[in-house]
């Protein structure tokens, strides 16, 4: 009696072994590391590697180890202070063409990595970093689309010589008014022909004949979806250039984007970058009119008054040569002659053609570069939230056209290399398709993260010890077996978390602590049952058997209900709650395995298949 078939023992052995292997990576230290990635403009070569080594050697910074991959270099350091110093000195050495990212890298041996065994993925509250939840104003995207339609309809009617009195937006519709019904019918047919997506409706007003054009629900949805997708892409481009390893940029719900940057330290800079929209416009200077007159209020038709960075007024032609949308690539650097910070810009085909035409016609005349930045500001006024956009338009450089421009050229006049860098970044990343607002932010500093790990680890350890002492004291040999199961359970939880690469958070650690307390419950139920069986006079072997059998359904019932709670927590919870639910869920499953099958296998080994006089429990 009380013997497990060989296959069951082997199965349990295999599960525990696999658990041990996958939990193993977590005992290796995680080193602060620096990841250097090349770009299209700059390949990482062995020569680069040598330059990095030399530079760090000269600065007296010790590299713990250096790995090179495809166009990638990973430097490990012994502490984060060295890591930061190395970043500073390499930034000046390598310039803007390489991406430097702070990261953590564990020295897990290759054979472990080759079976996919990785350390647990630590949440931001444990490793430090920035979490931002962004709300995308998708109605604005629909509004913009309507605005575009208004413009297009105007152009169409003008081209077709159909006289309209007004084209305006009313709610979710574009309203076109005509004086005569006949013209309206003609226009209706034309618009229908040209814009098949629009839903058109004739409305007769007081003394006007109108057409209302609406976007179909379908198209509205596509527009919203596109805006969100475009925003995610743009944000990803901007963040990738920030130099953070493993950033997470994900859609959440219908209209939100989550951005998580592990290890990032400067929320202010991130927020500036996320919310900023910056672009450039190239315009000719209006040299035929007097600036003073314009400042006095007489701005000539076809021109517009701007100011330079130092506040000097300047008159520019209204016609834009090239806008930021036509810029395909941008990088920052220094102007070779003046050594001023500069942005190198590449244009797309139509943009380049236009630029060449205009500059060819205007050699010797001054051309200006306008820097346009829009900041979104929301503040509470009288209890209501008001969002407004503040456009900032400045002329950053004016220079005479020496020769016709081509596809690639440079722009100077920026305040600092940092500004040149950010502008290049924004130009490269593209524009946001709809305005965004940060609705939640959680930043955890690195010291707090480390404290959380230490405190979490300490409480797991102390809780575990207390429970183990109690169990051993209470149930003797059986208690020791339960303790073995408890430790195995912890190993399995860690292994499953590592395998799934689920995020471990501080509430997640709390979940583990709680599971430690509750995992012994199954064993307590079984052992108490065995005691009862002995008390009513059963033999030790029969008592063990009956104890496990009878407690089983109780254990399952009790655990299923907790599983229900964990599943609901997971599906409704955000951030902290999810982390707790994950470990609770995994912990319940693994604890059922170790507490029922695991302890039974050991108990069977110890007591099974022989005559027992008395059972000490």
């Amino acid at each position: 009696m009380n013997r497990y078939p060989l296959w069951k023992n082997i199965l349990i052995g295999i599960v525990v072994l696999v658990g041990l292997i996958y939990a193993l990576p977590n005992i290796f230290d995680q080193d602060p590391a620096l990841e250097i990635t090349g770009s299209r403009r700059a390949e990482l070569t062995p020569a680069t590697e040598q330059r990095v080594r030399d530079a760090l050697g000269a600065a007296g910074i010790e590299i713990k180890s250096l790995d090179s991959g495809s166009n990638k270099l990973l430097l490990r350091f012994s502490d984060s202070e060295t890591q930061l110093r190395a970043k500073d000195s390499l930034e000046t050495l390598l310039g803007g063409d390489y991406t430097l990212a702070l990261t953590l890298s564990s020295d897990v041996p290759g054979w472990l990595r080759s079976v996919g065994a990785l350390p647990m993925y630590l949440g931001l509250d444990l490793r430090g970093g920035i979490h931002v939840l962004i709300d995308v104003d998708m109605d604005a995207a629909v509004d913009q689309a309507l605005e575009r339609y208004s413009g297009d309809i105007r152009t169409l009617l003008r081209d077709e010589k159909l006289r309209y009195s007004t084209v305006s937006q009313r709610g979710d519709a574009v309203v076109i008014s005509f004086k005569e019904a006949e013209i309206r019918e003609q226009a209706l047919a034309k618009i229908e022909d040209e814009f098949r997506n629009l839903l058109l409706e004739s409305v007769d007003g007081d003394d006007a004949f109108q057409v209302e054009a609406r976007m179909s629900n379908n198209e509205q949805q596509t527009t919203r979806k596109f805006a969100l997708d475009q925003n995610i892409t743009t944000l990803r481009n901007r963040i990738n250039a920030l130099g953070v390893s493993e950033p997470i940029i994900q859609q959440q719900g219908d209209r939100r984007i989550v951005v998580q940057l592990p290890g990032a330290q400067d929320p202010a800079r991130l927020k500036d970058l996320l919310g900023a929209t910056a672009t450039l416009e190239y315009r000719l200077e209006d040299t035929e009119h007097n600036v003073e007159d314009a400042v006095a209020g007489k701005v000539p038709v076809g021109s517009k008054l701007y100011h330079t960075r130092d506040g000097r007024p300047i008159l520019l032609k209204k016609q834009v040569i090239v806008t930021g949308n036509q810029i395909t690539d941008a990088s920052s650097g220094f102007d070779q002659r003046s050594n001023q910070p500069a942005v190198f810009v590449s244009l797309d085909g139509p943009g380049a053609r236009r630029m060449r035409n205009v500059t060819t016609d205007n050699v010797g005349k001054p051309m200006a570069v306008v820097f346009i930045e829009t900041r979104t500001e929301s503040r509470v006024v009288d209890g209501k939230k008001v969002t407004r956009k503040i456009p900032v338009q400045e002329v950053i450089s004016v220079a005479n056209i020496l020769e016709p421009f081509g596809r690639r050229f440079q722009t100077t006049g920026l305040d600092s290399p940092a500004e040149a860098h950010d502008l290049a970044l924004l130009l490269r990343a593209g524009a946001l398709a709809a305005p965004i607002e940060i609705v939640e932010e959680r930043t955890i500093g690195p010291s707090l993260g480390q404290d959380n790990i230490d405190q979490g680890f300490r409480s797991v350890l102390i809780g575990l010890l207390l429970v183990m002492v109690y169990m051993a004291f209470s149930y003797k040999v059986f208690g020791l077996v339960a303790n073995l199961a408890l430790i195995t359970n912890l190993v399995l939880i860690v292994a499953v978390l590592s395998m799934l690469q689920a995020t471990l958070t501080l509430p997640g650690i709390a979940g583990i602590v709680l599971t430690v307390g509750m995992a012994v419950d199954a064993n307590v139920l079984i052992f108490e049952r065995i005691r009862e069986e002995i008390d009513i006079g059963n033999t030790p072997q029969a008592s063990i058997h009956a104890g496990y059998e009878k407690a089983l359904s109780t254990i399952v019932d009790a655990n299923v209900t907790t599983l229900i709670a964990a599943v609901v927590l997971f599906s409704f919870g955000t951030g902290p709650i999810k982390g707790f639910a994950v470990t609770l869920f995994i912990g319940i499953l693994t604890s059922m395995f170790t507490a029922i099958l695991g302890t039974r296998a050991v108990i069977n080994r110890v007591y099974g298949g022989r005559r027992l006089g008395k059972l000490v429990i």
Partner: protein
Amino acid sequence: MRLFKSSLNINFMAKRKLAMAFSISLIAFALISLLARGLSLGIDFTGGTLVEVGYQQPVELSKVRSVLEEAGFAGTTVQHFGTPKDVLVRLAPGGEDDSAALSSRAFAELRQAAAGEAELRRVEFVGPQVGDELAEDGGLAMLYVLIGILIYVALRFEYRFALGSVIALVHDVVITIGAFSLFAIEFDLTVLAAILAVIGYSLNDTIVVFDRIRENFRKLRKGTPEQVINTSINQTLSRTLVTSGTTLLVLAALLIFGGEIIHGFALALIIGIVIGTYSSIYVASTAALMLGVSKSDLMPVKKEGADIASDGSQV
């Protein structure tokens, strides 16, 4: 080592009126406190901005306060967090800043005032809309957990047991939240998670007792429902107390060593588990008894009975 001798026979049900009076007065206290004082909700639910700053030296709160006042932050609250070197600042919304930029500016001011000797430990900003959503989701989660459990217990046992367990759960939740209201402990997302875990845990306890009641109804030929319930509670008492004991042990470790952030979480679980242990002994069974649970409700259906007879174990 055994907690109790096996012949333990405490007449729990005889004191059920007393227990009921006790429970009802606790719930009344909790509800009065909730109505009169409300909960001190954390920024997870109210929305707002919170900055935790770590200093090299212990720092006086009045100094931090005056720095912020001079910088034009009105309506801030400042408190120590865990140690005298850590300061937690709650910023009121509004003013000149964009709400997301508020925290950056506040920290910049504090850092400057401390000559750079201050470190940003944590920033939490929750927009009012998100706060409302989190509160709504939290309430919904609680509701769905209760419904899910009601269905499961009704399927596995009987509807009277299901009602009994849900009454016990509501009892536990109301009293735990009431304690947070009475002692004005901050109620945030992690506390909500703890409350939901309390639901799972307390039910766990209740199910074990119910399981035994069902078994005994089927096994014991004699005895009133009251006696059967009494026997069942006595038989499971040692397990109930041991498990609650071990769980409380680790939670105490978490409360003492887990750090400030996890404090509310551990506290909610400790209160909830103490109440939950009491309720699985008294409230759930009493409720089932008062709803009129009887032997005939729990006799196995014929087919199931045949199975039980053949393998010799009753569950």
